[in-house]
């Protein structure tokens, strides 16, 4: 337990250092970008004074080190990530508004990837070399090679427009006093409004599926091959001959060791979800973090960009940490070796 805590703590320090370096690099890069972000934000007709005032306010007229120091001080002391040029609000407010929605989107997608990826992978492995396997393998191939935006359009057209099973993009809107976590499904539950909760899930279903489907397919393939590899392992033959029941054999003896490679790949898939979500977000009119990050990048909003890369770094690190912990939990070989 203690070793575990030390490990997590070490990783945490590690992440912190990476983030510091990352943010400094991003700051210096923003300086290099040609074009004045303040001017382009305030519009063509803004007066010289207001441009200067904004430039000064954002510390853009001072040396890089001073600007970085000021930013770092504010982050550490007040959790203030600076002011966004794009929305003229503190970046932290923007993140608070946009991030939960995207996290919700990604979380639901991640859930789909895990459940459906493992489900199809298992079915495919259990019925390997039968027609069921062939059909699933063909579909997973199609899933891997089809661009996500194509799925988005297809789903929107078929399930929303023609069949009217789902809304045509957009999310249910909440009055501000009901927004507590920013994650709509949780807020709906907190309100005790179950039908609203269903509505939220319904709105999320297609975007999540479009975002997840490529990863589901990939995950299914990885899981299938991991299971097929283990099917030929001695311990499965031994357990089989020793009389372990078929279902236990598949869902326990075969599943658990096969889960280790699956989980590693899963981590990479999940970590990349948020970065890939912006086309899906704009297609389904979800005003989320991925779109926000695209906007701050396109607008060269300095503090926005830093905060966005910061968040991506944190998410990547946290997901990786979770996966590492998960792998350790699943695989006693690593765990016991680590303890020695």
């Amino acid at each position, binding site marked *: 337990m203690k070793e575990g805590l030390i490990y997590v703590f070490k990783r945490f320090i590690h992440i912190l250092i990476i983030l510091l370096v990352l943010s400094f690099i991003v700051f210096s890069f923003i300086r290099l970008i040609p074009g004045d972000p303040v001017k382009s934000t305030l519009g063509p007709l803004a007066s010289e004074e207001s441009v200067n005032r904004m430039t000064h306010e954002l510390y853009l007229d001072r040396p890089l080190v001073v600007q970085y120091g000021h930013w770092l001080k504010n982050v550490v002391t007040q959790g203030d990530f600076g002011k966004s040029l794009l929305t003229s609000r503190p970046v932290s407010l923007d993140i608070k508004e946009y991030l939960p929605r995207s996290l919700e989107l990604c979380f639901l997608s991640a859930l789909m990837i895990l459940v459906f990826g493992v489900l199809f992978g298992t079915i495919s492995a259990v019925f390997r070399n039968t027609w069921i396997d062939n059909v699933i393998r063909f579909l997973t191939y199609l899933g891997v090679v089809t661009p996500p935006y194509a799925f988005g359009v297809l789903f929107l057209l078929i399930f929303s427009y023609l069949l*009217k099973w789902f809304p*045509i993009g957009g999310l249910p809107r909440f009055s501000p006093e009901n927004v507590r976590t920013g994650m709509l499904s949780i807020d709906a539950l907190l309100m005790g409004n179950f039908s609203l909760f269903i509505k939220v899930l319904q709105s999320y279903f297609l975007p999540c599926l479009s975002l997840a489907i490529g990863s589901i397919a990939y995950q299914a393939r990885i899981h299938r091959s991991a299971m097929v590899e283990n099917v030929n392992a001695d311990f499965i033959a031994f357990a089989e001959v020793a009389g372990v029941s078929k279902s236990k054999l598949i869902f326990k003896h075969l599943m658990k060791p096969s889960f280790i490679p699956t989980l590693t790949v899963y981590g990479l898939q999940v970590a990349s979800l948020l970065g890939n979500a912006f086309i899906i977000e704009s297609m389904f*009119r979800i005003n989320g973090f991925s779109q926000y990050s695209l906007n701050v990048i396109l607008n060269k909003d300095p503090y926005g960009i830093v905060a966005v890369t910061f968040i991506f770094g944190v998410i990547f690190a946290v997901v990786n940490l979770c996966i590492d912990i998960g792998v350790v939990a699943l695989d006693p070989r690593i765990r016991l070796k680590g303890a020695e």
Partner: protein
Amino acid sequence: MKKKWIFLTVCLMALMGLVGCSGNKTQETGEKTQAAVATEAPVSAEKTVRDTLRTTQTAIPDTCDPAKGSGENDDLIFVNIYETLVYPNATTGDAEPLLATSWTSDNDGLKWTFTLRDDVKFSDGTPMTANDVKYSVDRLIAIGEGFSYIFKDVIASVDVVDDTTVVFNLKKSFGPFISSLIKLRIVNSTLLKANQLDGNYGENGDYGTTYLLNHSAGSGPYYISTFNVNDSVYLTENSNYWGAINDKAPKSVEITGLLDAATSKMLLNSGEVDLLHGRQVSTTLKSLLTNPEFATTSIAETGMNYFMMNTKKAPTDDLHIRKAISYACDRNAMSAIYGGMELSDSPIPSSFWGATDDVTTYPYSEEDAKKEIALSSYANNLADYPVEIAYIQGNGDTGKLAMLLGSELEAVGFTVKISEVPWVLFCDNAATVETSPSITNANSNASYPEAGSLLEVKFSSMTAGTFNQNEWILDDKLDAMIADSLATVDNDARLAKYAEIQKYLTTDVVPTINTFVGAVKPIWNTSVFSWPAGEGSVHVLEEYNYYYADFMMK
């Protein structure tokens, strides 16, 4: 071990629930949409229910602060929540009394005295006084964004005489002063002062800018009830409105930022949106109009679509090349792409006050174009100077215009490169001569309906380095002419000076191809509402057509 199974089962169930429930909800959504599309049957029931108008704009701005916004999307919201001292006449555009009942000027137009209405209340019930007018002007100029450029060099000070009398002292005479006041929106100073935070404006703190990020403080027929940045705005009818709102007007308006053609089509078709603001490509319009319940109209903008030629960059720095390009451009074909638009020989829409019909632009002729090229200094090495034509991504059919011009230029011997540029990048590129493309296509609009406004915004040095002026004219003579005309208070004299400028631009500078007069083509569901623009009475100023208090829900 068990835990994992429980976890997986829960996940599975949650997803099953998601899928299952979506099945259940289908009927409800289905019913709702059907009801919205086919409203003839349950008319009486629907009539009382439908008092919300759902409309779109190409984008929702970051803030609805009248001191900050100056774009089309800002104006569309502003006209509904803020009011101005004067109101432009629907057919002529002439200023008529609104918040001010009357005004007088003396001292050669350097001092203007306005008498205000005494029955105006803001949406929170506070009565409007002269103090609010002074506060609004000070605030606009201090913040220095949005439409402040019109007033910052014009207004010296504002004096409050009494609650209903206010005096504007001008720094210099300004001919179109009264017309320009339609961009001076009066804000509720009491409300803003009460919600003021610390900021850069001394005792005025942040001038209430933070409050206005998601609130409104105006006297218009609507106020902002919910504001979702870059997503949607909810307007609710102002119960304290001083004037009359027709009783069929929507009680609330839901405005969504929407540009994507496919989604727009689906939403209108399935009845989830009642009005598409109108920057659709022509095929979208065509396909939507196959539904007999949908109708469209054309609303002219206060400006034009222009091809702007960079006069400081080879090869378009040569006058002959610019003339050649003008000759090579088939404006009739371009208008046809848009389904027929009004052409104008002058760089100012001919319906504008101050537009002259005394100029002729260069007619389409490949031969003349080739002749001009031969006269130019690039006659022998034109291929070494590729011409880049840039247009804005997602700006309706402008890509087709650029493509057409490109193919016409190639036909007369130019080497052409087309680039589709996202809006922000487009603005960035405009910032320096080097990054400004040889030719850009964009729409430029006047702030107030008078030639002077468009001339200033489009051609004076003030806007060089912005998307409004890719030409980089930077011509001292032209600047002087524009400044002089704007300072002329006498209408006839001003008119003559405007004509002079247009002639100079067309014959001597040739910076621009006046493609056609811009227009938006909104499309709406006639079974849901009717509106003046749909009945044939189109307001000369585009944004006033979207004055929702004039809409009548069915």
